[in-house]
């Protein structure tokens, strides 16, 4: 019977393990995302660890991407490296954690990163879950039109026969439907479609996020971003875990200091210039954490 006993003990042990695992998993599931109990590291702790974990994108050039040598690059990364240098004395002490758009909040809430700098747009919904520092970039809508028939004011689009091209589901579509119901919209599903529609002359202009348009116009001669910025303005800022005021105020002071040496302009020149070209820094860059 010795064998039988062992078997039974084994069964009990194994089943307890399993119950434990599944039960924990399920109760966790209910707890959902409000894991506010999770702590974050103080600046002193970061210094002791000799590293700061910064969440960045790996596939969103030119903001955060991995180059063909496997190194992190981009506008966000450029600024993040400077943060690491000023906080811990060396930019190599930035440990980049590659995040994707949907889990940026979760990374902060579960203390898997110290700062998120992954082109994180400030929204009221996100503000409830994380703390945003001062912005380093701003975004708004833009309008691109052919050089032969430039659209330099939105009123021009109200004339009869002038169609405005938008992509379905974008904030630009919502904006025009709400604010300018008398402008005739031509809607497409894909980004590639809106651009070919403009080239074919099916519409007078495209309205979209200005960054997309600026980048496109740069590689398509004959088209210009004739209205570079209008409508609601979004900002992009570093974010820290809710309640991490120590790191938050350090970042804000840091951005102010960097503003004095025009560091964000330097970051723009080093990373975004290639894609957006010169002349759009004022539309995109926020220096010193303050929007004029």
């Amino acid at each position, binding site marked *: 019977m010795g064998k039988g006993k062992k078997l039974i003990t084994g069964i009990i042990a194994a089943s307890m393990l399993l119950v434990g695992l*599944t039960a924990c998993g399920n109760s966790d599931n209910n*707890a959902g995302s409000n*894991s506010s109990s999770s702590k974050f590291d103080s600046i002193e702790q970061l210094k002791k660890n000799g590293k700061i974990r910064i969440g960045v994108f790996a*596939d969103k050039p030119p903001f955060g*991407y*991995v180059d063909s*040598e496997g190194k992190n690059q981009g506008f966000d990364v450029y600024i993040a490296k400077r943060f690491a240098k000023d906080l811990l004395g060396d930019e190599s002490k930035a440990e980049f954690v590659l995040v*994707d758009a949907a*889990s940026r909040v979760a990374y902060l809430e579960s203390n*898997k990163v110290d700062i998120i700098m992954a082109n994180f747009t400030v929204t009221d919904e996100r503000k409830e879950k994380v703390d945003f520092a001062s912005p380093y970039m701003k975004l708004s809508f833009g309008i691109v039109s052919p050089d032969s028939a430039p659209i330099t004011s939105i009123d021009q689009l109200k004339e009869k026969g002038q169609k405005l091209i938008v992509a379905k589901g974008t904030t630009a579509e919502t904006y025009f439907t709400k604010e300018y119901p008398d402008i005739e919209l031509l809607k497409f599903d894909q980004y590639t479609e809106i651009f070919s529609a403009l080239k074919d002359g099916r519409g007078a202009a495209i309205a979209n996020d200005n960054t997309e348009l600026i980048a496109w116009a740069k590689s398509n001669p004959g088209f210009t971003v004739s209205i570079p910025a209008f409508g609601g303005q979004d900002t992009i800022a570093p974010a820290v875990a809710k309640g991490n005021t120590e790191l938050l105020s350090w970042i804000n002071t840091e951005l102010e200091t960097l503003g004095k040496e025009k560091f964000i302009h330097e970051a723009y020149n080093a990373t975004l210039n290639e894609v957006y070209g010169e002349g759009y820094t004022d539309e995109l860059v926020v220096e010193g954490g303050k929007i004029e």
Partner: protein
Amino acid sequence: MPNSGIEVLFEGSNFERLLGGLLVTIEISFVSIVIGTVLGVLMGLLRTVNSRPLRLVLRLYLEAFRIIPILVWLYVVHFSFSPMLHIDISGGATAILVFSLWGAAEIGDIVRGALESMPKHQVESGHALGLSRGQLYRYILIPQAVRRMLPGSINLATRIVKTTSLVVLIGVIEVVKIGQQIIELGVIKAPNASFWVYGFIFILYFIVCYPLSRLSRRFERKWQN
């Protein structure tokens, strides 16, 4: 065909990076399959034991993995479970944990199915010969059951290999993610790169999964004779 995009595969260290990513994929799947098989066989044996509460618990465990998507498990373990217990487990460890538990649940079901499908006379003959329960399993049931388990297990193994592509969402950089990084980097310069990169990844997955199905076919043939 100028600028077809295939050259993107060999730019910089892209090729090595893709292979490195494949290694991550293989590592996670291999470790998970091994752990999952060991736990799963144990679980399958337990599920044939004549105890209602035990069977119920194991059944619930299996259903938990069948009903809740693996992605949700990964999220729950990575973002809620580990901070709640104040242990910082890496994305890779989370992946191995979740895939092992999933593998154990499924292998357990396969083992149970194989054992239960044994004709009753096999058990009765065993008893008639005076074999103990242990001996019955060791000499009669398990050797026969293994043959019935094989197709299902290999199928599961290839499913695990393919499902590892979800781990990018908890920050593990495996072959698909590296492919996406390469594609996004060249989106303006080489817009057709995605065809080549995904094509290459297809071949890589094939190289991993094909030997598995070959292996299972060989065993099946061997045991037929």
